[in-house]
C-alpha cells in the first residue's frame, strides 16, 4: 500500500528549509535561546538543583509553575475543538488544527518542565507502567503523567490523521476522528483538573487545599490558551494564505471575556474567604498580595496579575474594544501575562511561603531557572513553528502528495 510516507517526509523536510528571512531569523533566534537553555541545564545537571533558588522550604518553584501554566495552554485547545467538530462550525474548523498543534507543543513543554525539575531525570523509566512502578493507586502525579501522555498521543493521532489524509488529498475519516475528538474534550479537561488536584489534594499547603482550585485552573486556562491563538491567527493571516475570519477571532475573544470573568470571580471569592475568615491560613494570600513582615518579593506580581486580568476583561467585554485589533491584541497579551504570572509565580510560591513550620524563605527564580525556562519555551515555539510550517500548506492544499512528487 503506497501511503506516500516517503514523499511526506522528504517534502516536509524541504518545506522546513524554505522560508523568508523573518522565518530564518525567528528559527535561529529560537535555536540560540535553546542552546543557552541547554548550557544552563547542563550546569544544573552537573551541580544539582542547588543552581536553582529552590530549597527545602520552597521545594517547587518556577519550573512547576511553568508546567502548570503550559498544562492550561494544552487543555485550552479543546475550547476550539468543541464548536469546530461537534457543531461543524466552519469559521473555526480550519483553524482548530492549529490549536491542536499548540496543545502538542505545550504538552512537550510540560514534560520538559517536569524533566528539568527532577533530581534524577534519567530515572524517568521508573514511571513507565509495566517497566517501572507507576503508582496509579493514589499518586495524583502518576495520574497526571499518564493523562498528559495520553493527551499528547491523542492529539498527535488526531492531527496526524487529519493532516496526512489531507496530504493524500482525502477527507479525514469522520468515523475515526469524531470519537477521538469527543474523547479529547474530557481529556483536555482531565489534564488540567488532575494537575489542579496535584496541588489541591495536598492538605499540608492550605493555599492549595481549596476546592476552588480546579475550576479556577480551567477558567484561567480557557483565557490564556485562546489568547495565544488570537495573536497567532493574525500572524498566520499575514504570513500565509490562510484565511481566518474576523468573526472567529471575535467569537473567541467574547468567550474569553466570560471565562475571564469567571476566573476573576473565583479569585475574588478565594480572597474574600481568606481575608474575612482571617484564620491562620490567611498568611499565604497575605504573602502574595501584601507581603509578611517586609517579605514582599512577589507582591508586585500578585497585583500585576489581577490588574492585567481586569483590564483585559474590560477590553474583551466591550464590543468596541473587542473588535478593534489594537485593543484586542493588548488584551490578549495582558491575559497571557496575567495568567502566566498567576500560575508561574502566584500559585506555587505562596503555597510554600511560609513553609509548613512557619518559616519564610523568599523564593525567586535563579538565573539558571530563568534560562532553562527560556530554553524550554523556545523549544516549544520551535516545535510549533516547524509543525505549522508543514501543517499550514497542507491545510491550504499547497502541499500534498501530487505536488510533493
Amino acid at each position, binding site marked *: 500500500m503506497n501511503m506516500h510516507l516517503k514523499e511526506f517526509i522528504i517534502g516536509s523536510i524541504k518545506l522546513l528549509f524554505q522560508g523568508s528571512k523573518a522565518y530564518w531569523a525567528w528559527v535561529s533566534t529560537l535555536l540560540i535561546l535553546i542552546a543557552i537553555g541547554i548550557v544552563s541545564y547542563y550546569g544544573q545537571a552537573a551541580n544539582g538543583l542547588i543552581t536553582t533558588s529552590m530549597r527545602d522550604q520552597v521545594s517547587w518553584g518556577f519550573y512547576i509553575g511553568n508546567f502548570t501554566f503550559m498544562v492550561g495552554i494544552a487543555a485550552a485547545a479543546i475550547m476550539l475543538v468543541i464548536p469546530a467538530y461537534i457543531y461543524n462550525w466552519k469559521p473555526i474548523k480550519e483553524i482548530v488544527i492549529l490549536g491542536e498543534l499548540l496543545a502538542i507543543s505545550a504538552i512537550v513543554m510540560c514534560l520538559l518542565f517536569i524533566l528539568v525539575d527532577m533530581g534524577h531525570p534519567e*530515572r*524517568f523509566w*521508573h514511571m513507565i507502567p509495566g517497566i517501572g*512502578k507507576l503508582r496509579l493507586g493514589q*499518586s495524583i*502525579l502518576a495520574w497526571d503523567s499518564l493523562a498528559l501522555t495520553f493527551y499528547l498521543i491523542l492529539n498527535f493521532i488526531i492531527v496526524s490523521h487529519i493532516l496526512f489524509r489531507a496530504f493524500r488529498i482525502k477527507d479525514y475519516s469522520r468515523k475515526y476522528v469524531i470519537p477521538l475528538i469527543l474523547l479529547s474534550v474530557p481529556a483536555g479537561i482531565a489534564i488540567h483538573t488532575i494537575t489542579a488536584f496535584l496541588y489541591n489534594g495536598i*492538605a499540608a499547603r492550605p493555599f492549595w487545599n481549596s476546592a476552588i482550585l480546579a475550576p479556577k485552573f480551567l477558567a484561567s486556562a480557557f483565557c490564556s490558551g485562546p489568547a495565544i491563538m488570537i495573536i497567532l491567527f493574525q500572524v498566520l493571516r499575514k504570513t500565509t494564505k490562510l484565511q481566518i475570519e474576523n468573526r472567529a477571532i471575535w467569537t473567541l475573544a467574547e468567550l474569553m471575556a466570560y471565562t475571564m470573568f469567571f476566573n476573576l470571580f473565583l479569585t475574588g471569592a478565594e480572597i474574600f474567604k481568606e481575608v474575612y475568615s482571617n484564620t*491562620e491560613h490567611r498568611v499565604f494570600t497575605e504573602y502574595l498580595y501584601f507581603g509578611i513582615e517586609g517579605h514582599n518579593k512577589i507582591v508586585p506580581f500578585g497585583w500585576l496579575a489581577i490588574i492585567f486580568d481586569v483590564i483585559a476583561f474590560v477590553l474583551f467585554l466591550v464590543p468596541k474594544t473587542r473588535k478593534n485589533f489594537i485593543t484586542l491584541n493588548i488584551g490578549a497579551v495582558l491575559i497571557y501575562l496575567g495568567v502566566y504570572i498567576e500560575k508561574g509565580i502566584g500559585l506555587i510560591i505562596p503555597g510554600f511561603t511560609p513553609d509548613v513550620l512557619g518559616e519564610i524563605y523568599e523564593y525567586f527564580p535563579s538565573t539558571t531557572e530563568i534560562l532553562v525556562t527560556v530554553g524550554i519555551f523556545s523549544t516549544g515555539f520551535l516545535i510549533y513553528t516547524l509543525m505549522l510550517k508543514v501543517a499550514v500548506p497542507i491545510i491550504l492544499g499547497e502541499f500534498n502528495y501530487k505536488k510533493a512528487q
Partner: protein
Amino acid sequence: MKERKKILHPHRSIERRDFMKWMAVGTASIAGLSLLSSCDSDKREAFFQDQFKELDENELKAVLERLERGYKKEYNADIEVNATAPMDHVLFGYGLDLSKCIGCRRCVYACVEENNQSRNPEVHWIKVLEMEKDKGADLLHSDVYYNPEQVPEEGHFYMPVQCQQCKNAPCVKVCPVEATWTEPDGIVVVDYDWCLGCRNCMSACPYGARKFNWASPEIPQEEINIHTEYLGNRPRAKGVVEKCTFCIQRVRQGLYPACVEICPVGSRKFGNLLDEQSEIRTIMKNKRVFILKEELNTQPKFYYFYGT
C-alpha cells in the same frame, strides 16, 4: 547481619522483568543509552536496578555488594550496607517531652553524624523550633535560627520536629513511583535508588520532614558512619529525598535512636507501640499526648507530651 527475609512481590518473575527492562532501553533517554554503551557494568546495573521491594534475595545481595563497592571507591571507607528485616510484632513510636526540651540541638547533630547527612550543603533531619511561652505551640511565630549564649531562653520553650512516621502518610501517598513507603514496623523509608527527585513528597509533608540533596552531599571521610542500612543511613547521592527513619539501622538492632541517646535532658522516648510495657505506651497511658497537626489526619507515631 540479618538478611531481609521477606520478598514482598514474588509473583513478578525475574525473566519478565529483565525483558521489560531491556524494553526500556528502547525508550531510554540519551543518558541511559550512553550509560549502556560506555560505562562499566556497575553503573549499568545501577541504572537498571529495580525498586527495593521487587528485588529477590540474590538480586538484593548483588545490589548491596555493588553499593559497598561503590562507596569504597567514593568515600574510601568500608561501609557495610545492610537490609535488615523488620521485627515481628513491632510498631515503633516516639515520645517527646516538651516540658523537658531545652533546645540545645544536641539531637540535630547526633542525627547528622549517625545518619551520614550531608555537611555541605547542610542537611538536618531534625529542626528545633523555639516558641514563645505566651503564644503556645504557634508554628507561624516559631524560630528555628535562635542562637543565644545559653538555652533555654527566658519565656521560651522548644519543639523539635522531625519525621512523624505517620500511619496515614501523605508523602507516601503522593509518590508517583513508590520510592517511599511505610515498612511493617511503621518506619516510612525511601529507596534512594528509585527516587526520581520530583519532590512531590516534600510538598505533601505537613512537617517539613523531608530533605532534598540539592547538590552532591559531602561527608568528611573520618566522620562516616560505616554501619548503614539500605533504607536508612547509607550515603545518598544528589537529587534524592531523604528523611528521618527513627535510625532504622539502630532500632532494628534493638538500639535506641541516636537522638534519644544524646538528649541531655531525657526528653526523647522511644519504644514499641504494640508492647504495653514499653516506655512509649507507658507515657500514653500516664500522660496526655498530642500529635502535631492532628486536623490533617496524618496519624503520626510521634507523640508530644508534657512530662510535668
